[in-house]
């Protein structure tokens, strides 16, 4: 077997998996082996999308799905590490704060940490003042971690995500 790599596989509604793939394998071969090829209307992305931090005012991320006939090496997965399969093309996200909101169509490969940083930019909140702000997922009222990808948060049948930007106040006393 040629050089093997540890990669991270993300899919809708699931926690990420650690997988191993040879750099000469095609992505199709890897996904076939793991029984997670995309279906009709589903996409595969690689990497983590941080475009929203570079261009926060754009309406959507410009992150394109990949050709799964390419090899792990050709897709630069030794650098990107993350594979998102059975993904939607974009995840419409709405973040509400102090009665206002901002929306963007994110790549499913964007993380919650990226959405949080983007939201602070859009609401013009400086780092020191916003240090205690976290994203609360609606209607679940949970706090996803910074490393979670948006695609993972989409339960089957759900196509968008709504967050509230809230001050974290852990219980005292």
């Amino acid at each position, binding site marked *: 077997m040629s050089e093997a790599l*540890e990669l*991270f*596989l*993300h899919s809708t509604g699931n*926690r*990420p*998996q*650690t997988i191993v793939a040879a750099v000469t394998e095609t992505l199709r071969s890897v996904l076939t082996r793991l029984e997670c090829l995309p279906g009709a209307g589903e996409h595969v992305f690689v990497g983590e999308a941080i475009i929203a931090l570079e261009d926060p005012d754009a309406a959507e991320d410009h992150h394109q799905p990949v050709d799964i006939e390419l090899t792990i090496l050709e897709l630069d997965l030794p650098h990107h*590490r*993350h594979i998102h399969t059975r993904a939607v093309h974009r995840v419409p996200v709405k973040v509400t704060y102090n009665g206002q909101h901002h929306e963007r169509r994110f790549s499913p490969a964007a993380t919650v940490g990226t959405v949080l940083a983007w939201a602070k930019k859009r609401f013009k909140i400086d*780092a*020191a003042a*916003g*240090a*205690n702000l976290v994203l*609360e997922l609606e209607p679940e*009222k*949970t*706090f996803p*971690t*910074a*490393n979670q990808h948006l695609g993972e948060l989409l339960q089957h049948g759900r196509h968008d995500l709504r967050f509230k930007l809230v001050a*974290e*106040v*852990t*219980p*005292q006393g």
Partner: protein
Amino acid sequence: MTATLSQRLLETDLASGDFCIGEAKGCWKLAQPVTEQAWPAVFTFISAAERPNCPVEFLVRWDLDQYGSQSPSGAFWDAESNSFLAIPKWPKGKPGSVVEAVFKTVGWAAPGQGFYHPYDRKAMHNHVKWPAAHPQYMWTKENVLPDFISLVHRYLNSDDYLGC
């Protein structure tokens, strides 16, 4: 739950994407292999934002007794003395911040031996009203150790973290 079963559950969670992604990003790592001899103690390094005269990572000892059926307890640890990190060396948070609250070392049942957060079972002790009053902060059966590690990492990299 036996130690062996708890240990197996933990090993599965440490091999999961949640832990390995943070490890690959340099956010945290195991400080030493998980062993039966050390169980239920497991040690991780968690990276911290740079602050003058402060370490760039902290050693955390996790007490994972009954892991899988009860929540962990964690605390900063001193490898040299093989004991909880001396209270003056604990990370400090901006006054009034969550960082200060979670790392507080006075005024509760286990100062310097746990994190004052509902994920930590030492903090949960005698706080029977917390689950009903603050359900969003509770440890549930869906949670895994990397969730708690991620939380501590966030606090150590917050702008409200002042150093140690």
